[in-house]
């Protein structure tokens, strides 16, 4: 309980600090919203040209797009501390965290909650709301809950990815950018149903980094749509568990990393 109280304290301080530069914050958030909205504008343009995407309609794609963007932007705001972790290892600042009688994960997550990225979140929510309003069947309590769980599971998965990226900093202080392919690339990929991709690609994002499990399968159930890949109903309902599992594994790997940590000594 104490830990959670501490986390909220961290969050409060972080948000307060960022709101000190109010104009800058508003401009950045608005700019971010517009910048990320260009992606959806692009998708709209493609649909106006091609009409449909292997049987998928624009509102259906909007559901994938909105869900993954909401999930990613929340994870991105929460895990900023891990994002900066490579620099902490380089500078030796991580030593300070180890000296404190709290878990390193809590301290890193609490380090900064970036709110200027609220633009992507806002944009994702708007697209998602539009997708829901355009649905033929509408949301039931069950499917609304499933959508929420899918998004939460997406937050877990992206947080897990950022933690793995940070963990790799224990062994290599450069080239952490390779992970961007999975985080930002993962967002790009998940904006479309995974069924449109080649099979080797699909397999990677189902079994290695289970992005397909956190959005594709549950959203099929939400949209009440037949899976072109032939999955059955119950799989679509349990698939989001993979995101939570992924986070738990990432946390274990992190623990191993911390045990191997050798300070730069500066």
């Amino acid at each position: 309980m104490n830990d959670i109280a501490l986390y909220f304290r961290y969050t409060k301080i972080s948000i307060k600090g960022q709101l000190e530069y109010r104009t800058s914050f508003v401009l950045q958030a608005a700019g971010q919203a517009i910048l990320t909205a260009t992606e959806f504008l692009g998708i709209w343009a493609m649909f106006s040209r091609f009409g449909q995407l292997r049987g998928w309609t624009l509102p259906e794609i909007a559901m994938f797009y909105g869900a993954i963007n909401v999930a990613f932007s929340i994870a991105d705001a929460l895990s900023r501390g891990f994002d900066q972790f490579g620099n902490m290892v380089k500078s030796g600042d991580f030593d300070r965290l180890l000296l404190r009688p709290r878990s390193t994960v809590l301290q890193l997550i609490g380090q900064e909650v970036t709110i200027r990225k609220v633009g992507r979140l806002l944009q994702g929510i708007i697209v998602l709301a539009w997708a829901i309003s355009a649905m033929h069947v509408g949301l039931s309590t069950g499917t609304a809950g499933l959508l929420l769980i899918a998004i939460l599971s997406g937050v877990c998965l992206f947080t897990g990815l950022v933690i793995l990226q940070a963990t790799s900093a224990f062994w290599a202080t450069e080239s952490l950018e390779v992970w961007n392919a999975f985080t930002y690339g993962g967002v790009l990929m998940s904006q479309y149903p995974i069924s449109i991709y080649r099979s080797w690609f699909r397999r990677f994002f189902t079994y290695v980094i289970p992005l397909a499990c956190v959005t594709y399968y549950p959203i099929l159930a939400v949209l009440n749509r037949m899976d072109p890949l032939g999955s059955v109903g119950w799989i679509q309902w349990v698939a989001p568990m993979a995101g939570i599992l992924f986070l738990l594994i990432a946390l274990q790997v992190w623990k191993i990393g911390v045990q191997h940590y050798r300070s730069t000594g500066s």
Partner: protein
Amino acid sequence: MNWMRPYLAVLSARFRSMLQYRAAAIAGLWTQVFFGMVNIMVYEAFYSSTDKQQPLTFAQVVSYVWLGQALLALLPWYADSEVRAIVRSGAVAYELCRPIDLYNLWFMRAMAWRTAPTILRAVPMVVLVMFVFPLIGLGEWRLHSPTLAAGLGFAAAITCTLLLSCAITTLMNISLMWTVSADGTVVMMNALVTIFSGMVVPLPLFPNWAQPVLMALPFAGLVDLPYRVYVGNILPGSIPLIIFRQLFWTVVLVLLGRWLMARGIRRIVVQGG
């Protein structure tokens, strides 16, 4: 060639500093190849969804995507972080003391800032997607080589793209003189560049009614026009017109930048001692 000297000096410094980060360059290459492949698969799915004739063929779109990934650093994404630091710290006063016109210095700096990373990223990328891809069974996704006329036209057009891009970058740098945190302006400019250059979706794939507007804006000269010259969608006969449009916008933006800079210098306050 005296005016070139500051440019060459900044360029070689930038090259040498970037070459220190080879691991980061490889990581960046991998990320961009990944992004390119995802984009291509999406286009593949769209193209297989319809039999209708499209303004660009799938093979042309594939080449367009790879050019975009290879030349990403050429686009006016960010204001130069060195200029930002110079304005913020007050060192801009030193810049004004240098015996060279400030606009030219910043423009040359922008050129170095754009060309060094572009060359460093484009060369391995092109080797990979043009020559290695066919060998590993990804021939359909490879970057096609242009015809001779298209290749020459592209070389000319992409040089003009560099000038246009630097004019926009310098304009963003100058905007830093007004708001020390000009992040709003910069991110807004990024959004305009992203969508209207053709970086998100090739401009011919936008609806027909939007075409006149898209073509009238300066941003088409950054991505869409030179890439379409390369893939053969714009015929060699039209290349002079394309280059004229790029240069026209470059001149307009340079004049605008010079005018703003003159006003900015008049009201500049140097902070710190």
